[in-house]
Structures are given as C-alpha cells and as structure tokens.
C-alpha cells in the first residue's frame, strides 16, 4: 500500500514537472509593422518601433524608461547608470555613476570606457568607431550633448552645450554598445549588427535580413527584477495589416502591432486580447498661421469646436483612440488646466465664425490641407479626414484635403509652407510623438524652432510661450518643470494653432497565451514582464 502511494506520488511529480516547465519560458512571436528588421548595431532605426523591439531589448541606455505601469506617464529610471546629478556651480556638467558588475552579451564588462566609446561612435565623425548608421539614427537626439569624459572606471561626466534640464531625456536614446565586440567583429558596424552585443535582457541568436530576428533570454542579465519570463523572442517584419492579421489568426504569431480598426470587433469575438491605452501620440491638423483663414484665432477655435471626436473614435476606429483637446491628453503631467475644452459643439463653432465677421452667406476663405494616404502613426487618414472635412463644412468652414503618399507628406512638411509647391496650403495632417518636453513643445512652439531650423512650420510665435519653455528648460526640479509645461500647454490650447483631434490608443492584438503584458503610457514596452500560458 505504501509502495503504491510512493509510485503515485512520483508519477504525479513526473507529470507535474513538464507542465510547470511549460508554463514558464516558451517563444513569443511578434509581428511588427516595420518592413525590415530594425538596425541591430546599437542605435536602432525604423523610428520608435525599432527602439521598442530591437533597441531596448538587446541594448540599454544609461537612463531607462520605467514601463511597468499603465496608470501614469512612463518616466526615466536608472538604467546602466545608478544615479546622475547636475553640477550646481556649472550646470552644463553632469556626473553619472555607472552600475558595476554588468556584462555585455559577449562577456566583456560595461564601464566608463564603454560609455565614452559609445558616445564617440555617434557624435565624433573622426573617431575610428564612428557608426554612420547609428549616428544618423540617434545623433540628432543628442543635440544638447557636447562631450563625455571618463572620471574613473565607473564615473563619467557629460558636458552639455547649455544649461538644460532636458539632458537626461536625451540619454534615454543612446544605447550602450560593446567596444570588445566591435573589435571582435573586425571593427565593422555592419558585422557588429550581424552578431550584436548589448547589456539588455535579450540577446540575438539568429538574424535573417527582412525575414526574422531571433533572440533568447539573457540569463546573465544584471537586474533580477527584470529577468525575462519567456525563453525566446522572435520578431517578424510584416508591413501589410492584412498579413499581420492572417498571421495572428493562423497562429503564426502571438502578438501583432496595430491591427486594422475594422477587424478589432471580430478579433475580440474570436477570443483575441485587444490591448489599448493612452501614450504620447497626437493626430491632428497643424495650421498655417500667417495666412487666411487660419491667421484668425476665432476661426481656429471654431474649427476645434466643430470636430466630432467621440464619433470618430467610436464609429470609425472601434474605440482605438480618445478625443484630443490639446497636445497632451487629460491626466498627462503637462496637460495643465486649459480654459478651453474642445468638445463637439457646432453651435459654438458657428457663433465663433460669426464673431470673426463671417456667416449669413459669407464663408471664410477655402483652406487646402495636405494629408497622407497611409503612414506610420497616421491611423486611417483617408476615412478620418473625410469626417473632419464634413464636420468643418457643416459649420461653414471649407477645407479641401489633398492626399499624398506618406513619404511625400513628410518631405513637404519638413520644408515648411514657404516653398513654391506648399505655398497654396493652409495646413497638414501629421501624427506626432511627444515623449519628452523638447519633442512635445520646443520643436513646434518655440520661435527659434521655425523651419528650417526645426519643425515649427506654422510658424507659431508667442513670446510668452518662448519664455515658459525656456523657464522649464532651466528648472532642474521636475515638479516645477511639470507645472511650467502645464502652463505652457494652457497657452497653446488657448491659441489653437492646431486642430486637435485624437490621441491614438496604440492597439495591439494578442492571443490569449500572452500573459502579464502591461501597456505603458509610452511608445516602448517591457517584454520582460510577458509570460506565455496555454
């Protein structure tokens, strides 16, 4: 009898073992929207998607994003640096204390030499390790930084071009690469990219250009709190939405980025998880402020009151967006307390148009806006703009929309309104990211950012806004900075230089096997939280 019990016990243990082993580990396969594998040599390309799946998984910056919560905006957190501080006497100097006992995937140590090596590979054209691809992907994100100096093996000092509290935000994008691996791969970044080495939670095991990137969990990862729960990660480029959808439905992948909105209801009913959440994304029309009709603030406000944002999100986009009433969304630390809340109010819009001196048969001059037919972050540009156009026409604002290809829109947008081909335009519909103060406000709303220096295309010139941006940049106290940026946001919302329309909710579709994923308020994700069930 006792022996039977022992046998039963052992059989039970044997049966339970593989089951519990299967619950852990496994291979997570993700269908990306990129058309190719993002650059794996350190400083990823393919925009934020490249950083999301390749950059932050293989590599790490000195300062990382905290992506563990969906309730608040993702904030900077210690990465390969344990702490950092600005020099009180000379605020252009920043001291970074580096983390000890961190190894690259190739086994070499991470230290101050690696930081200097990495910085020079992106910023110093004459350095032997200068990485032309990496420099064009990341160099411009480090515009505030002039140089870096090794103080001792685990301390470095960065120097900025001017005193600025935005410096730490820039270091979020500089991925630390391994000097030893560079030497090992023949001092050639292309070869480095084929057998990459970072310090991140995943390491590359197989790289097939345009087809797939296979990674495995880095079991020697320094942070015990961020040990990957999965064993393997496979990234597949799938630029076609229908292809991604089919791959998910047929079980070829477990997770796809941006499923088409019209498929979301069906996916839900078929038992797939649809994950959504706000993040710093903005979809609206940027207006031309030095020409009629949008040189008139009343008409701009009227346009903002004319848009049925709830209708767009509900009927057209299956709740994958939320109404946008400013650059930032409500609940965002820089939202502030704007005087105007742009709800759908056609009556108010008509009254504002009347106040501007039009109405009773007199319509404001016709505007022409450039839109795209598709494109990264552009959501469903054609259908959405048809609704926007109808909403505006209903209150008496005539806008012609000119659809062009995404690449064309980007090129023409960068050139600004004052070129022969753009002279006839009054606005453009372009989706934008605002993960940090500089990309949210400085590049669009500071008078020094007027095209061609940066992308203040409107141009938006407001001395009060300039002063507030500058004050925020000079404040090293985060609370005070948030307060100032909130105040700035109030000014901008009141000036209505854009027609604020919606914020995307970054939909992702996943099979029910995917567990533990947190959709952060960020363009990036923490894949170490994800596990695979049955």
């Amino acid at each position, binding site marked *: 009898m006792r022996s039977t019990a022992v046998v039963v016990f052992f059989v039970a243990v044997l049966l339970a073992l593989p089951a519990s082993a299967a619950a852990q580990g496994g291979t997570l396969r993700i269908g990306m929207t990129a058309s190719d594998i993002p650059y794996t040599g350190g400083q990823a390309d393919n925009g934020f998607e490249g950083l999301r799946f390749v950059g932050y998984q293989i590599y790490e910056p000195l300062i990382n994003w905290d992506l563990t919560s969906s309730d608040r905006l993702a904030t900077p957190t210690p990465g390969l640096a344990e702490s950092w501080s600005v020099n009180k006497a000379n605020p252009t100097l920043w001291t970074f204390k580096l983390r000890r006992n961190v190894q690259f995937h190739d086994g070499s140590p991470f230290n101050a030499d690696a930081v200097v090596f990495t910085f020079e590979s992106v910023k110093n054209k004459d350095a032997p390790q200068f990485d*032309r691809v990496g420099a064009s992907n990341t160099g411009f994100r480090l515009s505030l930084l002039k140089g870096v100096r090794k103080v001792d093996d685990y301390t470095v000092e960065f120097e900025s071009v001017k005193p600025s509290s935005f410096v730490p935000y820039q270091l979020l994008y500089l991925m630390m690469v391994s000097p030893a691996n560079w030497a090992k791969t023949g001092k050639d970044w292309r070869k480095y990219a084929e057998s990459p080495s970072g310090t991140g939670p995943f390491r590359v095991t197989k790289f097939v250009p345009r087809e797939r990137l296979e990674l495995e969990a880095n079991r020697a990862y320094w942070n015990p709190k961020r040990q990957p729960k999965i064993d393997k990660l496979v990234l597949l480029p799938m630029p076609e939405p229908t292809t991604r959808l089919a791959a998910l439905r047929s079980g070829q992948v477990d997770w796809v980025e941006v499923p088409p909105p019209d498929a979301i209801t069906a996916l839900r009913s078929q038992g797939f998880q649809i994950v959504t959440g706000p993040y710093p994304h903005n979809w609206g029309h940027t207006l031309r402020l030095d020409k009629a009709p949008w040189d008139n603030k009343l008409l701009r406000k009227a346009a903002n009151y004319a848009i049925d944002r709830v209708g767009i999100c509900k009927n057209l986009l299956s709740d994958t967006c939320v109404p946008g009433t400013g650059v930032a969304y409500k609940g965002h630390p820089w939202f502030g307390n704007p005087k105007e809340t742009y709800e759908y109010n056609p009556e108010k819009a008509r009254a504002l148009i009347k106040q501007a001196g039009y109405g009773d048969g007199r319509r404001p001059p016709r505007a022409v806006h450039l839109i795209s037919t598709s494109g990264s972050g552009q959501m469903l540009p054609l259908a959405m703009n048809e609704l926007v156009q109808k909403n505006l026409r209903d209150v008496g604002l005539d806008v012609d929309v000119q659809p062009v290809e995404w*690449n064309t829109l980007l090129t023409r947008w960068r050139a600004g309104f004052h070129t022969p081909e753009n002279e006839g335009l009054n606005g453009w519909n372009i989706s934008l990211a605002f993960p940090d103060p500089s990309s949210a406000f400085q590049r669009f709303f500071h008078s020094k950012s007027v095209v061609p220096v940066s992308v203040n295309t409107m141009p938006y010139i407001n001395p009060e806004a300039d002063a507030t941006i500058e004050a925020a940049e000079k404040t090293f106290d985060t609370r005070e900075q948030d307060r100032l940026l909130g105040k700035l946001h109030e000014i901008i919302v009141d000036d209505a230089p854009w027609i604020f329309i919606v914020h995307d909710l970054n939909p992702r579709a996943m099979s029910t096997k995917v567990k533990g994923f947190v959709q952060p308020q960020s363009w990036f994700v923490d894949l170490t939280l994800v596990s695979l069930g049955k």
Partner: protein
Amino acid sequence: MWSLVVRRLLLAVPTLLGASLIVFAMVKLAPGDPISILMPPDAGKAEIEAVKEALGLDRPLPVQYLKWLERAVVHGDLGRSIATRRPVVHDVFDALRHSVALAVASSLLALVPGLMLGTLAAFHRGTLVDKIVSAVAITGVSVPHYWAGIILIIVFSVRLGWLPAMGGPAEPGIGAYVHHMLLPAVALALIPLGVITRVVRAAVLEVLAQEFVLTLRMKGLYMGALVRHVLKNSSPQILTVMGLQFGFALGGSVLVETVFSWPGTGYLLNIAIFQRDMPLLQGIILVLSTAFVLLNLAVDVLQGLIDPRIVRS
C-alpha cells in the same frame, strides 16, 4: 545561331542602360526622398544635411547617376542600401533566390494544367468542355491575384490551418520551403494559368486547321500521337508566352509577395519604392531587367532548336 546570341547580348546593353536611366529619373521626379524615412520627424536641419552629404544625396542628379553607373560597370558594385547600409548585391541576389523559386513553382502550376486544359478545349471546340475551360481561363485572368492571395490565406491558413499565412520558412529544408511557398505560388499561378490556357487553345486550334493534321487523321493516327504533333507545331507560340509569364512572375509579383511577406524581389522592390531607396531600387531593376533579357534570349534560342525555320527567317 551564335551570331543571334551575340547580337542579342549586345542589344541588351542599351536596353539595360535605358532601364536604369528611366528608373533613376522616375524616382527623382517623384516627390519625397529617402531622408524622410531614414530620419524621424523630429530630426533637425543640420543633422539632415549631414546625412545627405554622407550619402552623396547633396550632389547634382547627373553626377549621382554617373557615379552609380561608374561603380556598377567598373567595379560591379551596386552600392549600399540607403535604409539598411547593407550591400545591394547581397540583398538583391538573396531575394532573387526566393523569387526564382516562386516563379518556377508558379510557372509549373500554370503550365501543366494550362497545357492540358487548352489542348482539351481545342480538341473539344464548341462543346461544354470548351465552355468550362474558357470560364476557368477567364476567371484566372480576371481575378486580382492579391485578392486571390488573401482568400487563399483566409481559407487555408486561418480556417483550415493547413498552410502558413506568410513569410519564408524559419527552418532549413525543402519540405518547409515548399510548405511556405505553396499559397503564394498558387496565387501567382492564376493569371498565367488563364493566359496559357487561352494561348494553347488558340495555338492548337490554328494547327488543327492545317492540312497536315487532316492527312495525319486520314492516316488513322491514334489520338496521342496526333496531340504530340499538334503540340510540337504550336510550341513556339506557347513558349513565347511561357517565357513572358515567367519573367512577369520573377519581377512582377510585388503584390503577391507583399501580401504573403514572401522575401523575394517583389517585396524588396515594394520596400525600396516606399523608402525611396535609390541604390536598392536601381539594383533590383538592373538585375530583373538582365534576367528578363536573358530569359527572352533563352526563349528565342529554344524556339530555334525546336523549329529551325525561325532561325532561318
């Protein structure tokens, strides 16, 4: 025969030059540039200029073209992709491998049934069989192949789960390769199937109307031998169409390869166009036009071998 080959090869040079010049001009005339995709929207003017300079995009257009041509002709170097910085030669030939495999598979899938159906229809002209075959052929020609691709995915990958929906195989081996290639090959075979069926039917009918067939029939030749004679006589026409269709399959499968994320030249071409990746685009077009020229030459030579009258004329 050899003088024909040499003459045709010499003629290929201006053809390829013309193709590369037209592609270059078209891309440059189209609005947009590679920098817009390469550099995120928040990149500053100075950084953009630096990248343009590094890539040689700041130089005048004729200089850019001649530089490219010089490198391609003198050094056999097609440059590097603007987006990935990988050597173009490497990427194009890697993709070509997959496209050739797909083109061969889809051509086989089109040729064998196409020949059978066309011949069947011609021999049963005006009957119900003929009508059914014609309907099949017309459907093949008329159905947009990307749409057919999506339907095939829905049926065979999503509903039945028999075949993968997209991509190339992860593991090596012929079995896995064919498994992944089957759906795109079927989608790609539909149009040539229709075309070949119709051409075969017409060609066979033409031959059937000739007097020697009547003689053969009067001699009491059995059906199999008759078909063989007829097919051999209609083969020049069929071969020409086959060659063309194979060429189209090689380069013209942009839509099907994109729908299935099949890593061939069509997919690569699609990426290159949207990223305005000039060196990559030029490289693909050059290799594809060379393939097309060689293919036509091969068809001509083959025709000469089958029917010596063609060379003599």
